[in-house]
């Protein structure tokens, strides 16, 4: 099996985890989670340097990841568990009382892998910039990665942050935008059109790359290209086209599965499309 195939197998298992977690509590956000699964697997399986057995808040000497669109917590939790941050069985506690796997990610429950609460949108880029600046002050050459929703870019704070990252030459940061053109109320282009995103980021002084976020090969090669753009005085953003609900046919092509859980029958239909490669939790 090639390395890419191994990553794809893990992505299939994580997609199963996502729909099972959300089904288990009849709440949560499967659509964006499924769309971004390949990105998370590429990041944690291939791109980032980190030590899951020794999680520290400061993460000195490690690459850091910040999830700004915190509602896609299922994909992040499953990824963190599958890559060794905490026991895989704990995924069954998602959104239940006393869980560390809160509906939206939090540091309050001390879940290894999470360094910032997110869920109220638009705040993650500022935090990632701060963490990247701290790395520079500390002489730490590792990078900071972040993920943002496209609908989330309607929050003005993102553009304050975009300005600041260019102004302060935060060139150790690779931000990614999940560009699936879906948000709760409908298509992003209908709810509040973002216009020409590439032109917007370029105008704010960023290096812009694009990729298909559901092609594992392309995700890895594009992020590796993005790495070669770091250290050159400009922040880097990747516009990542994804399909919301990727991997489950009836969840694709619509915004309706943004924040809706499948019922028993729908769960079976979904799982029939996702191979159990590593064993369910």
């Amino acid at each position: 099996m090639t390395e890419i195939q191994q990553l794809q197998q893990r992505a299939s298992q994580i997609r199963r985890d996502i729909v099972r977690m959300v089904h288990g509590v009849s709440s949560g956000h499967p659509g964006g989670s499924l769309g971004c699964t390949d990105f998370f697997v590429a990041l944690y399986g291939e791109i980032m340097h980190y030590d899951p057995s020794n999680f520290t808040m400061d993460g000195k000497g490690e690459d850091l990841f910040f999830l700004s669109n915190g509602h896609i917590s299922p994909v992040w939790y499953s990824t963190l568990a599958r890559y060794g941050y905490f026991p895989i069985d704990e995924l069954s506690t998602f959104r239940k009382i006393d869980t560390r796997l809160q509906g939206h990610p939090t540091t309050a429950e001390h879940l290894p892998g999470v360094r910032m609460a997110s869920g109220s949108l638009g705040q993650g880029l500022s935090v990632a910039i701060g963490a990247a600046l701290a790395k520079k002050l500390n002489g730490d050459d590792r990078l900071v990665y972040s993920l943002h929703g496209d609908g989330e870019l309607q929050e003005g704070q993102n553009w304050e942050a975009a300005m600041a990252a260019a102004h302060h030459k935060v060139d150790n940061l690779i931000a990614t935008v999940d560009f699936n053109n879906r948000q709760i109320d409908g298509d992003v282009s209908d709810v509040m059109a973002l216009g020409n995103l590439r032109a917007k980021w370029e105008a704010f002084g960023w290096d812009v790359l694009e990729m298909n976020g559901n092609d594992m090969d392309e995700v890895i090669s594009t992020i590796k290209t993005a790495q070669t753009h770091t250290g050159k005085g400009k922040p880097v953003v990747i516009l990542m086209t994804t399909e919301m609900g990727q991997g489950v046919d009836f969840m694709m092509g619509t915004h309706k599965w943004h924040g809706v859980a499948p019922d028993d029958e729908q769960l079976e239909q979904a799982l029939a499309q996702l191979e159990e490669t590593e064993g369910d939790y």
Partner: protein
Amino acid sequence: MSIHDFNPTEKKDTRSGFGDALHALGKEDERVVALCADLTGSLKMNAFADDFPERFFQTGVAEANMIGMAAGLTIGGKIPYTGTFANFSTGRVYDQIRQSIAYSGKNVKICASHAGLTLGEDGATHQILEDIGLMRMLPNMTVINPCDYNQTFAATKAIKDHEGPVYLRFGRPKWPIFASKESFEIGKAWKINDGADVTLIATGHLVWYSILAARELEKEGISVDLLNIHTIKPIDEEAILKSVRKTGCVVTAEEHNRFGGLGEAVAQVTSTNYPVHHEFVSVDDKFGESGTPEDLLKKYGLDVPDIISAVKRVKAKK
């Protein structure tokens, strides 16, 4: 110590106490970083910015991003001090503070100048009278409102070694310097005068007015037990209860709306432990307006005679 021990000869703004202490911290501890949203001069952060440019981050007029960047800088061990006016430090960025700092437990020091009416002529858009309440309501947040240059200097330094988010509130006008630097310990009231008749608890600029009021009251035979509560959260319950058990009544004085501020914090302590009559010297649920600090304090009922009459009113109810 008594109300007669103070003969201030010098006036300085509390914001300069912040700026001078921040500069000193810059020399002492390289973990200290500072961020400012286009008010470096007003916040007296120039010296830090000039001497430690690599640790100073100008964010422009973009307070939400400043708060998020500060939260991020703690990841990696920095101790960020943010600086802007109190209104823009709190109300404007409430959700950013709530999620990225307080809920996330980040070690950020939110430093806010031009709080209350005494910023003066700029008027109500800039005169926040709700900030103590906003910050008190946030779990994990420590809230401090020092009374003069010296206390602000001491507080600015002390919060560096306090792990966790802090809201530090100070102001614009030149104000008498009377507190010793030893007057400040986080969470510990400063006892200014021993008295038997009425407990008077003050914070911020109104501490000096309370000293003046207590002197006048003494001439009329009313003895005031005067406390400075600079740390409004966590509040020094022991000091409050010790005093009201002696006097049986309390007046609180603050440059803040009567909702959410020091007065309510004190009332919560007394009402659940030792209920006493309570008079509030505070703004009566209003926005401010343009004027000199002195004229505004007078018009909004925060002047020395207002404190004196509140003390007499509460004493009469005993």
